[in-house]
Each structure stands twice: as C-alpha cells, then as structure tokens.
C-alpha cells in the first residue's frame, strides 16, 4: 500500500482546518476566503509557468540548458540562474516547479538555488514599488547584497550537494 505524499499533506491541512473550525468558526471562514484569494492569484500564473515549461521542453534541447546552467559552465552558471530568477514571475509558489524542471533538464544545484532565491527575493516587476516605498539607496543595497549572498549560497550548494 503506497500513499501519495500529496494525500498526506492534504490530510494534515484538513485536520488543521478542522481544529481551526472547532476553535473559532468565523476565523475559519476567513481562512477559506484567504485561501480562495491565494488560489485565484496563483493558479493562473502556475498555468502560465507550466505552459512555459512545456514550451521549453518542446523547443529547447536539454543540451543547451545544460550549457548555460549545468556544471560545465562552473560558477558562472550560478550567476546565470540568478539573473533568470530576477526576471521570474513574482509568485513564489510557482518558482519550485520551474526550478525542479530546470534541474531535471540538466541545471546544476548551484544554478537552481540561485534561480530560486532571486526568484523569490529580487523582482524586476516589483522594482518600481520597492523604489517608491524605500528609495534608491535601500533598494540598491538590498538587491546588490542579496545577489552577492545568493551567489555565496550557490557556491555552498555546488560544494555540498
């Protein structure tokens, strides 16, 4: 008898929801509303990401992904992964399926973690908002430092994994 991982997660989520409902019913309806909004926000982006994954699989050879993000290009692949992440769509939940796809296509762990981290932390599309809320200096310092530290994390990943 094998139980799918997903089923276990779903069961845990359902039990937590039940506990929440027993403790405070109105709060739990709010939980469901929040979950609905998250689903409405993330699912379309997820669909687009899956389409992109399929398109890349259909039109880009594994070799060329491996050339840019594989171990062949060494630590440069981390930088390539990071730059790719900066342009990724802003929903973090969509980063992991795409990152897994990149790894399956021959991307190296250092490049994958570079993509994941900048995909979450740095966004070309959120830059205008960051500049508006925090100013030029803060934005420059945060993004630059993040980029540098993610590079270091990428090296650790290359060595350890």
């Amino acid at each position, binding site marked *: 008898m094998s139980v799918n991982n*997903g089923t276990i997660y779903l069961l845990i989520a359902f039990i937590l929801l039940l506990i929440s409902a027993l403790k405070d019913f109105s709060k739990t309806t709010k939980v469901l509303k929040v979950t609905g909004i998250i689903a409405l926000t993330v699912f379309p982006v997820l669909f687009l990401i899956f389409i992109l994954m*399929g398109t890349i699989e259909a039109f880009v050879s594994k070799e060329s992904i491996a050339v840019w993000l594989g171990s062949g290009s060494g630590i440069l692949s981390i930088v390539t992964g990071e730059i790719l992440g900066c342009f990724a769509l802003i929903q973090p939940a969509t980063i992991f399926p795409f990152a897994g796809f990149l790894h399956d296509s021959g991307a190296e762990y250092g490049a994958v973690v570079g993509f994941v981290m900048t995909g979450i932390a740095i966004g070309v599309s959120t830059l205008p908002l960051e500049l508006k809320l925090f100013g030029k200096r803060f934005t420059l310092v945060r993004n630059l*430092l993040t980029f540098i530290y993610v590079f270091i994390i990428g090296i650790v*990943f290359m060595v350890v994994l």
Partner: protein
Amino acid sequence: MNDKRKIQTHKITRDAITYLIIAFFIWGIASMLSLSKGFLIGEVVYSTFVNIIEIIIAVFVIIGLIQVWISPQKLSKILGKEAGWKGLAFASTIPLFIGGSLFTIFPLMKMLREKGASNAVVLAFVSAWCGKVPLLPLEVEFLGVRFAILRILLIIPFAIAIGIVGELILERWRAVKYDGGG
C-alpha cells in the same frame, strides 16, 4: 474598506485573465509551429498539474491558516518594538513562516519601518522571508529534502549578514553625504 476590497478582487481577476491569455497565446503559437509540440506542451501541463494539485491545495490552506491566526500585522508590531540583537534575532527567523510575494511583503516592511525598526531589522526581515517554510512541501517534492533543508538552514545566517552589512553601508552612506555636503 469594502470598496478597497472590491478593487483588490477586481485587480486579481484582471491579472488572472491576463496570465491565462498570455499562456494560451504562447500555447497557440507553439501549436501552430508544430502540432505535435503543442500536444507535448499539453502533456507537460497536465502531468505536472496532476502531480502537485494536492500539495498546492494543502499549501494554500496552510498559508491561509497562518495568515489568519498569526496575522503578519501582529508580527510586525512585535518586531517594530524589539531593538538591537533581540530584534535582529526575531527578524531573521519569524518571517520564515510568512507567506506572500514581494508585492505583499513590501508594504509590511514599510509598516515595520514606520514602527521604528532599523534598516538591519527590515533587511533581515525580507531576507528571512525568502525561507518560505509554508512552501516546504512543494520544495521537497520538486528539489528534494536535502536541497530544502540546506537552503532553509542557510537563510538565517544570510538574513543576519544582509541586515548587519546593509545597515553599515546605509549608515556610512548617510554619514558621507552629511560630511561631504557640509
């Protein structure tokens, strides 16, 4: 308040439709170039979707639970008050459990700042938020346990370092400006 919510829902719906149109557009172009490749794309979409639908729903419910029971606003109120090392320690760990994207986290950081948090705390806050513990099931599914654990372990020192170094740079920058300008 009600109006604001209406505008928000309106924006989410509009964004959703935009993403779907772009996706179908790409799919359509690809299928016109080669019908078999169009089918291949459909297969990838379907198999990935079937693979993660349960995990995705579970993750969304858990994020919803966290957001309602431990509201980010409450957390940032606590973080704004704590100064010094304690503040940095909180800021580099607690945000690991907060959901959302940069669009939702920036206003929170702004609030933190207005409540008197230092640059170090704000920088550590957003860096630690990249830990994304609520998405852990997804990360494990696609990248493996070792990847996920190593990444989350590295996040905390990463957040502290960015907080401290960032604050030093921003402070020096300000000092230079005032010295030079005088």
